[in-house]
Structure formats: C-alpha cells, structure tokens
C-alpha cells in the first residue's frame, strides 16, 4: 500500500498540463517586483528610479535574518518604486522595471561552483540568491538550513507530492531536471549533516517516480517513495508522517522531529544558485483551468503580470470569472489580472463561470465529515461555530492554531460552510489579542 496519512480527500485531479513540457514565454515589457514575496520582513530597495539594472542585479536588500534580497528579473531601467497590486490582496511596495529586451545577465563568468563549499558559505549563497520555499508558503530557505544549536536533522524530504489539483510544475521539473533536483538534495543533506533523503511523489506521477528512482538507483541514502494520491499529501506534517511515521508536535516545526522538507522546485533553485550563481529570478508556473486557451507549464520571470502570462498562454476565454493564484484548494482568488507573479506563484487557475460556485452556507448538520477528513484531526465544525459566536478562547482550546487552512473541511461540507474563512478570522483575532497583551506587559 502506498504511504500516506490519516484523513484528507481526493478531489478531481484535473492535471490538464501533466504532459506539457515547460515552455519559456516571451518576456514582458515591464516587471513589477514586490519587495515582499516571502514570509518575514520585506526587503529594502537598493536602487533608485532611473537606475539601469541587469538580470540578477540585486534591487532589494534583506532586512534581518528572516528575509531575503530581491533581484531584477529583466535588464532595463527602474521606472518606479511604489505600491502595486499584490497577489496576497493588498497593494504592497514593489519596484517596476522597464525591460530593455537585451536580456543581459550580471557577469557570472567568474562564478565558481559552490556545491562543495562549507555549510556556512552555502547558506550565505542561498540567502543571497533570494531563495524561498517555492511550494507556495515562500519561507526563506536559508533559515530552514540553519537549525538552532541542539537540533539535529537526520532526514531531508523533497516534496514532489504536488497534491493540489491542476498544478503540474513540480511534476514537469522532476521529469526535465531530475539531476539538478537530486544534486540540490545532496547539498541540503550535506549542509545539515542528514544521513537520509526522501523524495516523496504522489502515485499519479508514475513517470516522475520512475525517472527519479532511476537517478538515485545507486544511492543508498536517498529513496524515492510513491505516495497515495490524496490531498493534502504534500503538506509538511502529513508528508513527514507518511514517510517517516514521525509526528511534528503541535505548535512545533519539522526540525523538532529531525526532519526538513523542501519543495523539489526549491531544490532546483538551490542547485542553480550554487552551481551557476543564478539568483531566483524565474519559476515554473502552471497556467490551467477551464477558461484559459492553452493550458501549460511556463517558465516565467518573477514580476511578470498575470495578464501577460495569460496572454502568452493563448489568452483567456470571455467567460473567465475567477483567477486563482496557486491551486484550487489553498490558492488565493485575484481581483485583477494586473498582479505580478511572485516567488510563491505555483500556478494560475482560470475558471469559467460554470466552474465558479458561490454557495450560500447552510446550517451545520453535524454530519462529522469535516472531523473524519481533517488531516490535523481537529473538530472543524466546533471551531467554526466558536469563531462565529466570538468564543475565541474556546476555538483556541480546540486547536484552531494547529489548522493549516488546507480547506479539506470546507471541501467535504454538505452545508458549504466557509470553515477556512472563519479560521483565518479566528487566528487573526488571537494574534491581535496576543499583540495587545504583549503591549500591556511592555
């Protein structure tokens, strides 16, 4: 039996683009590069309006440890530094660069391969390259590579589950760049001194499992594992549970059980940064859904607007009524196609009106489906009720903070209750209360 975790659901996979090779799209005339594309402090601009930049030029400096620098993804001239629409919802500071279309990189001719350097040097290079987790959460990778004193990591897991419907970028990367991904995994294992490496892939990608397995055939320490096709198989805690049987303690991190999880795309980015010196200036974006003319997997420069990417993918149908950044389970609906692709943009799903449902939530029937399917084994119906009634302390006691907002409860709910929305509200309220309390004490 394929390895897995308890709970979860199996929505229609809709992997329309699994057989579409990664294509590089025509460059945009301009890019909008937000200074905040990662978890943590936004970077600080280091360029001025009018300044000339090349591909890979640093245009924003990291602020603090949990932060990464930002780089230009085109060659051209800085046009403005201002607030621009951001896929997370609110306008945020970004640097707009006019593309001169010369496609000129910074000078990398003297770059020396860093894959065999010291752990500290590798961490520094990974940070300098602006690398963050490319699965969607965009957590700075160098932080994950720097476990605090006393934490030993013995197992590194590459996440190739790609359990969200529609998304196929990781699948394609594994087929097209297996050597680079595995090389990246070796580097991560070396930096952490981890003896064991896993590459977890859902079984709906047998070609990727075969390809990766073939590449690690002679490698004792790395194992490719086929996982049951079930959402959220690629969630960090669920993936660790499936592969190692270990449970990350509530409120804890994977390193508490000696594990580290990286997306396969991140591993590829690490390899590119160390081997070639290329900072993270582009990523694979799956453009899919019922309202896009040519669904596919595209290599897209960071900062390219959604509208340009969609245009390059043949354009959208007249009836497009929803654009989602990410997958349909956890992705964020966009109010405009003028938002830029950021480091965490794994996909763009365009849905036509008949695929967009607006459900009026009904009363909870207490059917218990959310309880049966919750991958964190919470009681979502009760937590949702507590938040609705403003009983935040009880919501917290019932584990609202252990919720990862995977959306499984809302997916299975016959009453169409918006659990995730309520949980976000509840969490925000808890955060606000904590800030207030901290303020009082200070």
């Amino acid at each position, binding site marked *: 039996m394929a390895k897995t975790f308890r709970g979860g659901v199996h929505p229609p996979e809709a992997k329309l683009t699994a057989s579409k090779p990664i294509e590089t799209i025509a460059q945009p005339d301009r890019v909008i590069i937000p200074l905040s594309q990662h978890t943590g402090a936004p970077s600080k601009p280091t360029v001025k309006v009018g300044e000339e930049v090349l591909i890979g030029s640093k245009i924003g400096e990291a602020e603090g440890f949990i932060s990464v620098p930002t780089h230009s993804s085109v060659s051209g001239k800085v046009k403005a530094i201002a607030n621009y629409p951001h896929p997370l919802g609110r306008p945020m500071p970004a640097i707009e660069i006019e593309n001169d279309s010369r496609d000129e990189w910074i000078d990398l001719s003297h770059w020396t391969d860093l894959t065999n350097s010291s752990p500290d040097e590798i961490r520094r290079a990974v940070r300098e390259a602006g690398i963050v987790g490319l699965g969607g959460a965009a957590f700075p990778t160098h932080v994950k590579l720097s476990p605090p004193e006393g934490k030993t990591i013995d197992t590194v897991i590459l996440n190739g589950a790609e359990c969200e419907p529609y998304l196929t970028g990781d699948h394609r990367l594994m087929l097209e760049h297996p050597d680079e991904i595995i090389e990246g995994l070796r580097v991560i294992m070396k930096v952490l001194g981890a003896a064991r490496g896993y590459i977890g892939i859902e079984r709906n990608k047998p070609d990727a499992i075969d390809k990766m397995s073939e590449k690690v055939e002679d490698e004792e320490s790395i194992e490719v594992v086929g996982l049951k096709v079930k959402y959220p198989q690629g969630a960090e805690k669920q993936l660790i549970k499936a592969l190692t049987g270990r449970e990350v303690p509530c409120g804890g991190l994977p390193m508490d059980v000696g594990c580290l999880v990286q997306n396969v795309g991140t591993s590829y980015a690490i390899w590119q940064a160390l081997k070639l010196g290329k900072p993270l200036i582009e990523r694979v974006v799956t453009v899919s859904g019922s309202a896009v003319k040519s669904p596919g997997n595209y290599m897209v420069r960071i900062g390219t607007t959604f509208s340009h990417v969609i245009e390059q993918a043949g354009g959208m149908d007249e009836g497009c009524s929803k654009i989602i950044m990410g997958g349909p389970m956890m992705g964020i609906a966009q109010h405009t196609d003028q938002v830029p692709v950021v480091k965490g943009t794994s996909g763009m799903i365009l849905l036509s009106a008949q695929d967009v449902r607006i459900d009026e939530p009904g009363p909870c029937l207490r059917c218990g489906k959310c309880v049966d399917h919750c991958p964190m084994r919470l009681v979502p119906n009760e937590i949702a009720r507590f938040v609705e009634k403003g009983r935040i302390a009880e919501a917290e006691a019932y*584990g609202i903070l252990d919720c990862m907002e995977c959306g499984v409860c809302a997916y299975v709910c016959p009453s*169409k209750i918006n659990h995730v929305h309520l949980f976000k509200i509840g969490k925000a309220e808890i955060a606000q209360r904590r800030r207030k309390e901290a303020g009082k004490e200070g």
Partner: protein
Amino acid sequence: MSAKLTVTPSPHIRDDLDIKKVMYAVVLALIPSAIGGVYFFGLRALVIIVAASLAAIATEAVCQKAIRRPVTISDGSALITGILLAFNLPPGVPYWLPVVGSVFAIAVAKIPFGGLGYNPLNPALVGRAFLLASWPVYMTTTWTAPSRGSLSGISAITTATPLGVFKYVRHILDNPSVGPDEISRANSYLAQLYSSASLKNLFLGNVGGCIGETSVILLLIGAAYLLIKGIICWRIPLSYIGTVALLTWILGGQGLFHGYPLFHVLSGGLVLGAFFMATDMVTSPVTPKGKIIFGVGCGILTSVIRLYGGYPEGVSYSILIMNITVPLIDRYTRPRKLGEVKGS
C-alpha cells in the same frame, strides 16, 4: 480586461454533496421500507405516511413564515421527520394521530431550537414520545397483523407483537407464583419465537409492528445504500446492534448467557432505529469515538427497557435519552490532534 472576477475564500472547489442530496438520499433509502409497510399493512399505511409527511412539511412552512425566516421545506428534512414518525406508528392508529405527531415534532422539537441542525433531539422521536404519552391506547393496542401472516409471527398467539409475546413470557417465567402449566406454555411460546420460521418472518417483515420497522431486509437495503454513499457510517448502527445482541445474549434468558440475541436484533424497531434514527447527524456525536459510545449507550438502554422495563420496546426512548448526552460525548471524545502529546 473587462470581465468581473469573483473573489471568494479558498477552497475554490467543493464536493458535490449538499444538504438536499444528503436528505433526499435518506428519503430514497426509506422508500423500500415504505413500500414494504404498504404491502404488509395495506393502504392505511400509505395514508399514514403521506399524512405525517404533509403535516410535517406544512408545519415547517407555517412556523417559518410565522417567525419570518426563509422557508426551507425543500431541503427534505421535514419530509424525513414525517416519514420516520409514520414508520414508528402502529398501522391501526386513527388518521389524525400522525398529523398531530408531525405538528408536535416540527413545531415543538425542531423550529424553536433554530430549525435544521440545531434541534438537540430527533424530532420524529419526540413526536412519537408525545403521542405515546398522550394516546397510549392508540399507540399500544392498534396493531394489525400483516396481510399474509400473524401479528406475532408465530401461530400460537395472534394478539401481540413478537416483543409483546417475549415480554409476556418473561413476566410468566420471572413470576415465582405461576403454575407449571403456564410455565411450560410460556416456554413453548419462547421456542416458537426463536424458531427459524419466526426469525424468517421477522427478517422479511411478515409480523406485526410499527409501519416501517418490521421488515429487516428492506431496512438493510436502504441502510446499505446510505453506507455506500457515505451518508451514514457503520459506527453507531454496529455498536448499537452489537450491544443489544451482547446484552440480550447475556441477560435475555433464564440464567446468564441463555438469551437468544438474533431474535432481539431482528425484532421491534432496532434495525430502523439503529440505521435511520440513531444515525440522525444533527442529534448524534461527530467524533468517531463518540459515535461508538453513543451506539453502546443506546444498546444498553434498549436492552434494559426490553428485558426489565414496562414497555416491550425501548428503541425510541433509548435514542432520545442518548440524544441528550451528545454535547457531553463530543466534548470528551475529541480526537487526538496530529502531533498532540498526551497529557499536554
């Protein structure tokens, strides 16, 4: 860009199952038993089922209008209440009785608590309890024999349901003052009740009883459909029926471990109650462990009432009593969270 974009919280896809589909699946699952009821007890049964259903739906509509809430009769839940109430009535009751029962079920046990999803007790069972308390004669003496069989399922007795016969036999055997003749007669009734012919009648439904409860096979067909569709799960029915089987085996005979569990499982309203009323989502626990506790509790109460209580049957009251415990059960059976350390 001209099109307007829809912005809603994630997830952006949902399972097809909705409230209506859940409710009408239950209605569909009850249809074989409804047809069986009409087959065994005649058109009277159909009139009672229709009267109870229409009364339930009409009451819900009137109540919701009166309190200026959206009328939600199309969700199917009131229809289920009506059908289940009718299923729990003897076929010989006057036609106004199901109407009164449905009105009470909806207007007292459902709407005042907030309607669907908020009622703590199963409305159909509250309706039945109300009728039993108010018109006990109609509710306990208007049994009719099935069209092709006898009321008790055995030929020796024609005036009581199988569980009624069992109660009578227990009464004789537990009474030290009865004579040997009576004891031997009681034992012969018992032997007939436990005979394969009697069990076959119980399984097929060819015995007296409430309209929808007698045919085990037809109930199981509907239950299988709900189980396969994932509308109900095995935990409550299995733990309920299993507990009744275990307890009636241990305590149901003269001396320990001399009971005949198969008779108790097949007779009365146990199968109807276990698969269609104890599993009522709104009034049963949501946690996996809680469902088992709930089922076991129902089983204990049903066995105790059948073996030691004043009524021959105790399914309705057992489920109603356990309904009250649901918030408590849910509270103390929360699953262990992924990564939760015991004692923390």
